[in-house]
């Protein structure tokens, strides 16, 4: 990965390609790369859909290598949803393929002269951009089918659906999986709208004729990868629970804890949880599609295989296995306990190119506003279809929960910095509330995921009962997660890394062996800190103040059943998060 592809979509005579070396971006990947470019090159006060914003795509540091789980791709820009910096990432095939073609980043910049839609084709021979208005208004599934018929079956695609073309703030960017289906989405923050604002419908990648990236020290790399894989396989989460049930294994647990946001965050328990749990979903998939249908990877080199395939009653493909956040957003959050309906909505979300979390939260708000009744699956499906069609109502909904709440006069709108909260009520998991409040990304569960702070050596010891502990733990998780997001590694490696120091060391050894470095745990923490620092400074310059690092007031006032608790971390404590 020794070059950056820059495409000026506003150039005279149509988009112009420029290849540059890495310059000051050398050694960066994934989120580190996207946030570095955005914070250095994008004016923080620019309009997210204007000429000054840039849309950055970056494979992770280990993408394109033989490292297991290294297929995450990051996209970054100024977010039209939050108004701040944004990084969203996804699995699928594009990351590995782009990395093998040698691209450390693709940067779309400028503003198109007209509304012509373009497709970009990248292979070992170079880059080709062509107008293709036949792609207009197509869903992601149809776009990919057209690209396959034009470029063959071995491609990967990065595309937007109609929501991205309409520049909706909930629009996602789709990446194709191993079956060339557009099921893996950089979902959050309206990144699809920014890609749409650049007039690019799809980037097609063909890595034929390329080889895996070669480590500086192949033997050490191979050994580190072996230890890493063994660690993932032996761990009960990455080796057993996730392959068997997917991320939706969390439904029963979070529900039991009383932290499962139900009917637009009005309760922490959903009476229909067992009907949409990971256990039930996996059993249904295996029953309809045959044993093994509930266990599938999203990209080559994935050994956790937390995904699966969802079939209808007649055995026809509907969508990939809807994961925990999706099942929650369109399920319990809307009072819906029908997996077939949820899968149908997931398919629509993927096809239109919409973030499932944002869309589910938005429908929850719409239901509270009286646009439909909680539990009415048919009505929920119809609301999502409004978005796809781009009706007046659909355009409101497609711009997310905050806009919808404003338009329909709803007070209970679960957003931070304009972005919807995911599937954990912050009143039950207060530390998650700290992350929602303070993350540079807006309410984001992955921002402070689960790499062990004590292994990274940045946590120290904290008193678990004192308020400052919540903030410090969230801070350490955010630092660690930012670092993992730079590697291209799936965040689900975190469970093995959390419990097994040798697995964490194997990850560092892989990076060291690949790049001939001598990183230590502290260096990994410093990488995370530098990413967050870039992002935080961008947000400050974009006008964010401490007042933006807050949960909506009702979380501190409304008691959440069944435990009847409120969010209790003080503003003063939240303001300490970035003081390291």
């Amino acid at each position, binding site marked *: 990965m020794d070059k950056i592809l820059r495409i000026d979509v506003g150039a005279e005579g149509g988009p112009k390609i420029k290849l540059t070396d890495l310059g000051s971006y050398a050694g960066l990947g994934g989120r580190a790369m996207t946030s570095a470019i955005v914070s250095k090159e994008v004016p923080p006060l620019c309009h997210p859909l204007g000429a000054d914003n840039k849309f950055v795509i970056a494979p992770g540091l280990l993408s394109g290598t033989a490292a297991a789980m290294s297929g995450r791709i990051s996209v970054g820009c100024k977010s039209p949803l939050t108004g701040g910096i944004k990084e969203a990432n996804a699995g699928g095939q594009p990351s590995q393929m782009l990395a093998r073609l040698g691209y450390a980043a693709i940067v779309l910049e400028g503003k198109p002269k007209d509304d012509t839609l373009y497709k970009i084709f990248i292979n070992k021979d170079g880059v080709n951009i062509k107008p293709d208005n036949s792609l207009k208004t197509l869903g992601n599934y149809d776009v990919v089918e057209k690209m396959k018929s034009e470029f063959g079956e071995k491609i990967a695609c990065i595309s937007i659906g109609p929501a991205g073309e309409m520049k909706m703030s909930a629009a996602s960017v789709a990446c194709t999986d191993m079956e060339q289906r557009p099921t893996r989405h950089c979902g959050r923050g309206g990144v699809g709208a920014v890609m749409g604002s650049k007039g690019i419908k799809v980037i097609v990648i063909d890595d034929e004729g390329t080889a895996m990236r070669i480590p500086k020290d192949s033997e050490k790399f191979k050994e580190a990868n072996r230890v890493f894989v063994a660690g993932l396989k032996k761990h009960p989460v990455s080796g057993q629970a996730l392959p068997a049930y997917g991320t939706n294994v969390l439904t029963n647990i979070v529900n039991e*804890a009383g932290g499962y946001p139900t009917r637009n965050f009005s309760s922490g328990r959903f009476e229909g949880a067992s009907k949409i749990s990971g256990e039930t979903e996996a059993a249904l998939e295996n029953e309809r599609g045959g044993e093994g249908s509930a266990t599938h990877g999203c990209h080559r080199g994935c050994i956790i295989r937390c995904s699966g395939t969802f079939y209808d009653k007649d055995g026809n493909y509907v969508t990939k296995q809807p994961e925990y956040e999706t099942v929650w957003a369109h399920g319990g959050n809307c009072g819906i306990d029908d997996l077939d309906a949820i899968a149908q909505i997931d398919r629509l979300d993927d096809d239109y190119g919409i973030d499932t979390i944002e869309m589910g939260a938005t429908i929850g708000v719409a239901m509270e506003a009286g646009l439909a009744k909680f539990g009415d699956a048919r009505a929920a499906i119809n609301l999502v279809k409004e978005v796809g069609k781009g009706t007046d109502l659909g355009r409101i909904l497609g711009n997310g929960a905050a806009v919808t709440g404003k338009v329909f006069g709803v007070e209970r709108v679960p957003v931070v910095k304009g972005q919807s909260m995911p599937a954990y009520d912050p009143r039950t998991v207060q530390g998650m509330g700290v992350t929602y409040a303070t993350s540079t990304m807006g309410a984001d569960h992955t921002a402070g995921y689960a790499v062990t702070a004590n292994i990274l050596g940045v946590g120290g010891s904290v008193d678990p009962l004192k308020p400052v502990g919540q903030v410090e733990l969230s801070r350490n998780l955010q630092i660690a997660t930012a670092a993992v997001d730079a590697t291209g590694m799936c965040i689900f490696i975190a469970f093995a890394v959390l419990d097994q120091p040798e697995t964490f060391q194997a990850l560092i050894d892989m990076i060291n062996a690949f790049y001939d470095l001598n990183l230590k745990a502290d260096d990994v923490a410093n990488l995370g800190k530098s990413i967050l620092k870039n992002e935080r400074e961008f947000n400050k310059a974009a006008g964010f103040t401490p007042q933006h690092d807050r949960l909506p007031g009702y979380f501190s006032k409304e008691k959440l059943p069944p435990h009847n608790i409120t969010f209790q971390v003080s503003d003063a404590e939240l303001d300490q998060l970035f003081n390291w």
Partner: protein
Amino acid sequence: MKVTIETRSLRSFMRLLEEGVILQVPEGLSVREALVTHFGMDPLYLENRVRTLFLNGKPVDDLDNTRVLHGSVLALSAAMPGLLRATMRRGGYYAAMRQRSDPITQAPETGKASGRVILKLFNMVAQDLREALFKKGFWISGERFQTFLKDQEEVLKTVCIRISADGSSLSLSDLVLMNFGKDDVFLILISSPV
């Protein structure tokens, strides 16, 4: 009423475990005593496999000083993904990120009267323990059993081999139509793979 079902697929009845089944247990036992001594769980299994344990919706760290009382809901899970797993697991480093609630300090009861607890089993734990629990039998509210039978009738038609109620054979459709009223049903499930 005692219902016995011989089935080709115990998996089809897993939802019962997720929603909770009723077991009798002497009141006032510690969680560990209830699970190991009374229910017969292998102590090593409890230590190593059951990574998250809730009593009445609150995570339990101290299995020896937390008491199970009549009406308690006990839920067991294996290791799970995500921040929740890190914060909810027993004795975890991230336990600080839980809700701020008082630790469970229910006073020990010494009466040892027979109480009823609801036991929920999730994910790998449900998979591991289902056969033994189904074979041993458990109570379930008649109303909930009826709802389950109606919801799952199509699937159950394909997996149920023999059904008896209080010793008399009956068909699945007869069982589905049965009115249990407010009574609980004692259910035994026997695996009979083809």
